């Protein structure tokens, strides 16, 4: 019930926020924060009671939903979903903190959307029924799109439409694949089923398996995003309000990676193996291309957006190398990128509030007036370019170590992103905070809630960067190895 409860709590607080309305707008952040904190408490309580159960998938609820198609409302939990939900809730707090001073219009509807998006995301991580998964997958898009379209920047409608069409079209491909899978299950076992655990017994012939895998892969590659499907992301990130960017970069992209881990690899092992060279090539291209593109940008958020593409390339690379180390590295990268890119977008939001521009060319020398902010920005940039001691390094290092064994050349290319990320990272930091200060530009340094937010994120990055075992120990027994198919069944 844990995830259902969390979703319920989030939705209830969303509706409360909506109903509270404009009259008590000041209470809205508190309502949202309380909702998130209650969810967090629920999760923590659950974790403290069950912490050794995470190594295996643990079904939670199963209620018939659309009986004619054997569709159930079914959820489950394992360490992967647990960690991603925890990450989601942490970033939810960040979202609320960055929204406090940014959002001045239609606040009630804003917090409604924010919380609804969170509920959808939690649902994605919780679903054990593929129809339910798809349902949440789409549901989280709606409030997200609304966030971009209503509270975004100047070009918000274009970005929102692009974002929505990209994800929707690709996810329809996935829907087709899901339905085909259900029919195949019906052929093989008699009953129609959308249940994830049932599907693990499926045995699909090869060319068909390949096509089905592609259906899933495209949906997740768009969300991730991987190289040729990435172009929605810079626009969406740039135009979204700060909390939207944080949520997009921090969690929404992770759902793509989650999908790859949860569905593509375990359900379509054979096809994934065949597809691996292509996927790895896409991953490497994303890494390099994202880094080069990031360097070329002059818009703060756009730069960070492209860097996300680069970092997510590591995930594709890691997952399709079928190396346990890289797989663990991918999990770490998920969390690390979630925290660090969220932090960078939060910084972008703070700068935008102070300067009313995201153009790096119009910034410079801000360190003089806001040293703490500069320090924090540098810290997060350092995280982004893989500074050891912060979590991103662990993820990157494990990923590359793992993939090197199988694909040394590809890894060598991917490793150039370490240079690339240093280039754009330093470019970002120096363009904004170093150099000659602009005339008469004095910006206030971090305010209390911003300080709280930055130190929360940095503290997590640092703590987990020094003690990543706190994260990794839950995954000791989890990894897909193609040679050892039994390992996967039921465990992932």
């Amino acid at each position, binding site marked *: 019930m844990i995830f259902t409860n969390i979703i319920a709590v989030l939705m209830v607080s969303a509706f409360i926020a909506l109903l509270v309305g404009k009259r008590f707008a000041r209470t809205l952040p508190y309502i949202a924060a309380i909702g998130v904190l209650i969810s967090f408490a629920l999760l923590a309580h659950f974790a403290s009671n069950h912490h050794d159960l995470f190594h295996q998938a643990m079904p939670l609820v199963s209620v018939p939903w659309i009986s004619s198609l054997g569709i159930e409302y079914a959820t489950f939990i394992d360490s992967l979903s647990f960690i991603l939900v925890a990450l989601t809730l942490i970033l939810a707090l960040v979202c609320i903190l960055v929204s406090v001073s940014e959002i001045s219009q239609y606040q009630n509807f804003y917090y409604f959307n924010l919380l609804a998006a969170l509920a959808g995301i939690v649902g994605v991580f919780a679903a054990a029924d593929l129809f339910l998964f798809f349902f949440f997958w789409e549901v989280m898009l709606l409030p997200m799109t609304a966030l971009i379209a209503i509270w975004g920047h100047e070009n918000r409608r274009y970005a929102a439409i692009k974002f929505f069409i990209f994800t929707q079209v690709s996810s329809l491909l996935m829907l087709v694949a899901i339905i085909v899978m259900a029919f195949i299950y019906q052929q093989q076992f008699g009953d129609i089923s959308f249940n994830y655990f049932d599907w693990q017994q499926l045995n699909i012939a090869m060319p068909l398996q390949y096509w089905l895998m592609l259906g899933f892969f495209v949906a997740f590659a768009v969300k991730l995003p991987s190289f040729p499907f990435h172009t929605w992301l810079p626009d969406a990130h740039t135009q979204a309000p700060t909390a939207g960017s944080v949520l997009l970069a921090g969690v929404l992209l992770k759902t793509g990676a989650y999908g790859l881990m949860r569905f593509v690899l375990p359900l379509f092992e054979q096809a994934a193996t065949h597809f691996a060279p292509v996927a790895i090539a896409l991953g490497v291209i994303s890494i390099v291309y994202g880094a080069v593109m990031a360097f070329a940008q002059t818009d703060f958020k756009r730069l960070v957006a492209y860097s996300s593409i680069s970092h997510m390339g590591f995930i594709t690379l890691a997952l399709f190398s079928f190396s346990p180390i890289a797989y663990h590295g991918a999990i770490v990268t998920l969390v690390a990128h979630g925290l660090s890119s969220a932090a960078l977008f939060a910084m972008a939001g703070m700068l935008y509030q102070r300067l009313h521009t995201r153009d790096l060319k119009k910034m410079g020398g801000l360190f003089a007036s806001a040293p703490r902010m500069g320090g924090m920005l540098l810290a997060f940039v350092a995280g982004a370019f893989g500074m050891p001691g912060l979590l991103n390094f662990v993820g990157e290092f494990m990923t590359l170590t793992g993939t*090197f064994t199988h694909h040394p050349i590809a890894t060598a290319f991917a490793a150039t992103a370490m240079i690339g990320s*240093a280039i754009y990272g330093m470019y970002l930091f*120096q363009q904004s905070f170093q*150099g000659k200060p602009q005339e008469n530009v004095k910006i206030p340094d971090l305010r209390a809630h911003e300080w709280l937010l930055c130190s929360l994120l940095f503290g997590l990055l640092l703590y987990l960067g020094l003690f990543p075992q706190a994260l990794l120990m839950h995954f000791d027994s989890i990894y897909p190895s193609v040679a050892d198919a039994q390992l996967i069944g039921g465990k992932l």
Partner: protein
Amino acid sequence: MTALTLLPFFPLFSFLVLIVLSKRLSWHIATAVALTGIGLSFIASIVVIQSLNVSASSGEGLTQSLWTWFMLGEHEVRFAFYVDQLTAVMIAVVSGVGFLIHGFAAAYMRDDENYSRFMAYMNLFICAMLLLVLAENLVLLYLGWEGVGLCSFLLIGFWYKDPDNAIAARKAFIVTRIGDTLLALGLFYLFMETNTLNIQEILAQQQTSPLSDEAAWWIALLLLGGAVGKSAQLPLHTWLPDAMAGPTPVSALIHAATMVTAGVYLIARMQGVYLLAPEILNLVAWVGCLTLLIAGIAALAQEDIKRVLAYSTMSQIGYMMLGLGAGANVAAVTHLMTHAFFKALLFLGAGAIILAVHHQQNIFKMGGLLKRMPLISILFLIGIAALIAFPGTSGFVSKEAIIAELWQSKTAGPVFWWLAVVGAFITSVYSFRLVFITFFGPYRAEHELLPQRHGLIVLPLVILALLALGGGYIPTHLEQVFSAPVASQHGPAWLHTVAIIAPLLGIGVAYLLYFPKTESSPAVPGTSSVYRFSHNGLGFDSTYNALVVKPFVWLANINRKDVIDLLVQLISWNTFTWHSAMKAAQSGRLRWYAATLGLGTALLLLGVIL
């Protein structure tokens, strides 16, 4: 081993205090905090070295494990320290010389508005550097490696308001980052082959089941890539002269005494792997050899006092590399140590001079300083003497030891020997060029001289001068670390003499060329094209700019709009074109509609009947 555990964390703690309290601290308190942190480190390292000497005469090191960092499959990457004689030298140098430089910096940066931040960065640097040398495994070493890089970035760009400084900082960071990436690839390769990243385990494995030739070759090459980046050797050396944009104590600490020698440390540390790849070891020697010559030539044509010293640093590290490549390991590491002493002395001396002449760094605008600030000048001269390996100085001990062992080097011994001697000759030429132009002749500065007599300025210089003179005789027990001593077969007897004479000859040449003949003759920089070429570091910068930087920037900028996005827009454009076409068909004319109805019917009929 509490001392060992705490050793790198003292400066970290003082860093935290300084960065958090920052401007709220007065100069005195900030200085006290900074110096305490590093001083405690120094004391701890003495304690560690003592216990090392007591406990491990057999060559075994001390290990101190703190916690498991992360797991690479079965292999546990620990947050753990390891100390042996090589590390001992390094920690002593880092904390000792570091302490002295901190003292100097306290005086040098006294009036800076961001003084606390500066000292914080310096402390952080020491912490990272200590982690680098103490690391028990290569991942932790990499942490330190990146940490020092980041601190170097911060300190070079400390005066961030000048865009040039920021660019220099970025350049330093990115160029070394290229090396770091190669190093990381080396680590991946090592892990693939040995399944561990623990240094001692790797080295021990080479005894039982050595790496294959190919693997050893690649690993050694990739690690060398890391080393040349950090140690500013060919071909990644171009960042170091620009890094002189940072405050002078930074140059002394990071870009002379400690960080730049990390590459030497790495190769010395991984000697066991290099021995399996003789070609690469030879390459190390060649890299060192070429660097020392090229840097020497470039140093001949510099006008900025710090750039001269920067090139000389590259050149001296070239000697260390050459020594490592040719098997003179002990001598090379000893040279690392002595170099730290005298180069720190030279930089701090230069710093004192720069302060005295109002932040003027052009040697052609100094002159005649020997009379005006004799104490500092003499201390500086001691440093120069050590640099050119004047007999009796520490530099003499270490450099001559390197050169002496070159002759027997297996591959190209005599060639190395000759080149090294030529390098020594060039060293003394440019050193005394510097000396003659700076300390002799008329005073050419625009402002009145400000003699520096602050205790924190003079005292470190004096101590460093003593070390520069006698540091070569400090016992190191390095032979315990380097297992394969070179055959003690000596070359011809004249070798020694030539090696000693070459620097002296250099002084003579420099005297002829650069000594101001009359008190009033104006010293001018050269104007010939050869001079300009040499002044610009033999064109490496411009070549890299044209070949790498410009194309990259061009490529990135030309694709700013993202070609893939254009494809997407093409799709949407296409859709809209179709839309317009169909919209045109929706003309509103009834007869046309009826016609489509007929056409459609005909089409369907055809479709079924055919």
